[in-house]
């Protein structure tokens, strides 16, 4: 099977995930700048979630760009990935409700960890579905960045029990790590 419809479906779901989060942002009550203050935490959570979903979409984009074929296992792995990604707006909403607490930081970490693990699963499914000489076989060897990311989320989940803000700092640090997307895929297209 070709990759087109899997891509179109994923793009649709991701577009909806990042846009429904904005519905959670509270409308300021009042005309002054002070009216913005109650929504600042949620706004920061929204910005972080927007970046995270973007990073996952970039990774998906890169993996599929290097693939020629998909099979049933890839479709399932992709659905599994979309499931965890679709929980991001839910966690953002929770942050809006109760602020940055142990539980919300923990939930964000768990969702992020499962997103990262499901991308790894998707990658191995794609590797299995494509011929050994397909572009993905050359570039998708297990990356160090992916391993660091998974390790960082595991640490963040543990840390969230004691210092939630340290876990939040780890989430930002992981995002920084991905600012330069995987160069191997860019070179591939040349």
């Amino acid at each position: 099977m070709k990759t087109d419809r899997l891509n179109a479906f994923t793009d649709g779901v991701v577009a909806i995930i990042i846009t429904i989060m904005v519905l959670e942002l509270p409308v300021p009550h009042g005309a002054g700048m002070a009216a913005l203050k109650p929504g600042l935490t949620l706004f920061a959570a929204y910005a972080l979630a927007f970046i995270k979903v973007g990073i996952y979409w970039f990774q998906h984009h890169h993996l599929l760009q290097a693939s020629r074929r998909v099979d049933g296992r890839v479709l399932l792995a992709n659905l599994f990935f979309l499931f965890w990604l679709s929980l991001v707006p839910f966690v953002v909403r929770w942050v809006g409700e109760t602020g940055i607490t142990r539980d919300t930081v923990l939930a964000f970490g768990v969702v992020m960890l499962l997103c990262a693990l499901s991308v790894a699963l998707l990658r191995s499914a794609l590797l299995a579905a494509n011929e050994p000489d397909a572009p993905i076989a050359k570039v998708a060897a297990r990356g160090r960045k992916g391993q660091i990311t998974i390790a960082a989320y595991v640490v963040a989940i543990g840390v969230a029990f004691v210092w939630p803000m340290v876990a939040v700092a780890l989430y930002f640090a992981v995002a920084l790590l991905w600012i330069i997307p995987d160069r191997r895929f860019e070179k591939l297209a040349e």
Partner: protein
Amino acid sequence: MTPERLNALTDGVVAIVLTIMVLEVKIPAEPTPEAVLAVLPFLAAYLLAFVYVAIYWNNHHHMMQSAHRVTGAVLWANHALLFWLTLFPLMIRWIDEAGVTAWPTASFGIVLLGASTCYVLLERALIAAEGEVSGVKRAVGRGVKEWASFAGYAAALPLAFVSPFLSVAIYVAVGIFWLVPDRRFVKRA
């Protein structure tokens, strides 16, 4: 990497942004001219935001016709542009709540400034991805239109604290200025 999926994601996000804005439009409370008048300011804000989002989409569409290669920098610039576009619905909700007053009007200008900055960054990233052969580079040239818009928004921000309606007039003027889609790309096509 080719731009098809970047375009697909952008189309999805822009379509949803336009649609969630319409959810905010209120029906007149009673079948009287007064009740209709009461919802008119919000309708005007909705129209302005709708036109602005449409302008961004049109220009994105035109520019991407000339782009053939995307890089990590292009993905980020585009994602940042999408971030600013998603804030339009929030801005018109605030204007609905607080009226055309200083802070909401200035904030609308900040969103416009953010979106236009990211649009220019996207232009630059697309040019950098293809170098001298870039079709975007030949079409954009020095980007006079972009700089003029920046100047307009930058002037509108402080003016919102003098008279918010002056800022609105600038937003409308810059919008009209961009309403004709980018001819530079049409010519190339």
